């Protein structure tokens, strides 16, 4: 469960988040939408402290990450993250990308890490790429490996930062399919996305952010088809 209270983030004079409060339940899939510059990526990055909030609190599974001196690295082991630009480790094989953190951070045995990696690669449909290097993979394959890498830590929460935005259109679905499968397993997911189809089909709840404010939230069917605020209406008219 993720609890966010009055989250503010400022970059110099620019206030990107202006007090966001929301709670994400265990097993919930939340899509975060909004125009570019709305602060949705910053919001997501505050959830695992890749951006340090200016004020406000973030707790994941009862652990407050924003507390002074909190062991953020420890908390991050429990929060998987998938980036727009994949950020696979280019000097490591797919297998090493998946086993590095489990072995070196969680201290699981090599055999256990290998087992996990094999299972996860099967799940994302890339078993045959186990010895490949990231540069030999397509964008969609890279992103699926990146998802598997995050899952190898067996996190309770998964964060997705525009996971399909850097992909060629024909590769978007293979990544969304993996994410759908993941949602069906009951994973808690927060997904910053421009894929309204994915939000409608998979998300339990949609957050609409604009100018650093959580303007509107609700079930996808309600928010996407019948937005209450003018800003959400205007945004959805443009993207749908």
């Amino acid at each position: 469960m993720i609890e966010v209270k009055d989250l503010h983030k400022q970059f110099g004079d620019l206030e990107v988040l202006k007090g966001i409060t929301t709670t994400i339940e265990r097993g919930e899939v939340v899509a975060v939408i909004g125009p570019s510059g709305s602060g949705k990526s910053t919001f997501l990055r505050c959830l695992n402290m890749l951006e340090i909030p200016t004020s406000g609190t973030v707790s994941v599974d009862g652990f407050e990450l924003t507390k002074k001196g909190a062991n953020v690295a420890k908390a991050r082991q429990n929060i998987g993250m998938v980036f727009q630009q994949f950020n696979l480790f280019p000097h490591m094989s797919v297998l090493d990308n998946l086993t590095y953190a489990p072995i070196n951070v969680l201290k699981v045995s090599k055999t256990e890490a290998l087992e996990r990696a094999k299972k996860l690669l099967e799940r994302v449909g890339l078993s045959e790429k186990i010895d490949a290097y990231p540069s030999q993979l397509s964008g969609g394959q890279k992103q699926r490996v990146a998802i598997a890498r995050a899952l190898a830590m067996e996190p309770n929460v998964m964060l997705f930062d525009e996971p399909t935005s850097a992909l060629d259109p024909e590769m978007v679905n293979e990544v969304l399919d993996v994410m759908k499968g993941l949602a069906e397993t009951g994973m808690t997911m927060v997904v910053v996305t421009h894929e309204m189809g994915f939000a409608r089909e998979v998300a339990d709840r949609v957050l609409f952010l604009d100018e650093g404010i959580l303007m509107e939230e609700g079930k996808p069917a309600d928010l996407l088809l019948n937005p209450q605020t003018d800003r959400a209406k205007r945004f959805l008219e443009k993207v749908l």
Partner: protein
Amino acid sequence: MDFSRIYDSIPYILEGIPVMFQVVIVSALIGISLGIVVATLKIVPNRLINFIGHAYTAVFRGTPLILQLAIIHFGLPQLTGYITTPYQSAVIAFSLNSGAYISEIIRAGIQAVDKGQWEASDALGVPYVKQLRSIILPQAFKNILPALVNEMITLTKESALVSTVGVLDIMRRAQIVGGQKAIYFEPLLFAGVIYFTIVMILTYLGQRLEKRLRKSDGR
């Protein structure tokens, strides 16, 4: 010009080659280690420690190497009471000096690594030292290596400065031969040919290394 007059001195001058390499290789090894440490000082998230790293670099890059060498060889014994041999002074000065240059090379190489690599390993909870060692440095290495080879070439040429404190390197031996026979052009030109040949060989090796690194990018 009459090279026949220095024929019998050629072996004597050539004996300076291993002497030079001793200074260069030992200084390079210490300099690289020191460079790694100073580069780390510059990038850790702590302003005071950053300042120490930058100050070190500024001092050693901001003053002539020949002055640093003289201070270490002629000046320091006055303070410490401990007299270093010419070879020791040479290695100390060249290590400290190349450490400053190498730290800049390493810092630039590390900072050229994509920011996403830090973020991805942060998000996995990888602790700082492991992050640097297993994720960042192996990638920085490709940016660092070509510049490091250049620094080695510079070090090889600059090593002629050790002749000023009495290390019997190629340069010093050429001067001694010149003094004994009262002809300077021939032994100095000969020394120049030796330096040039060594530098050309090192340059060639560096280019081959760079080519191989570029190939491995496409894996």
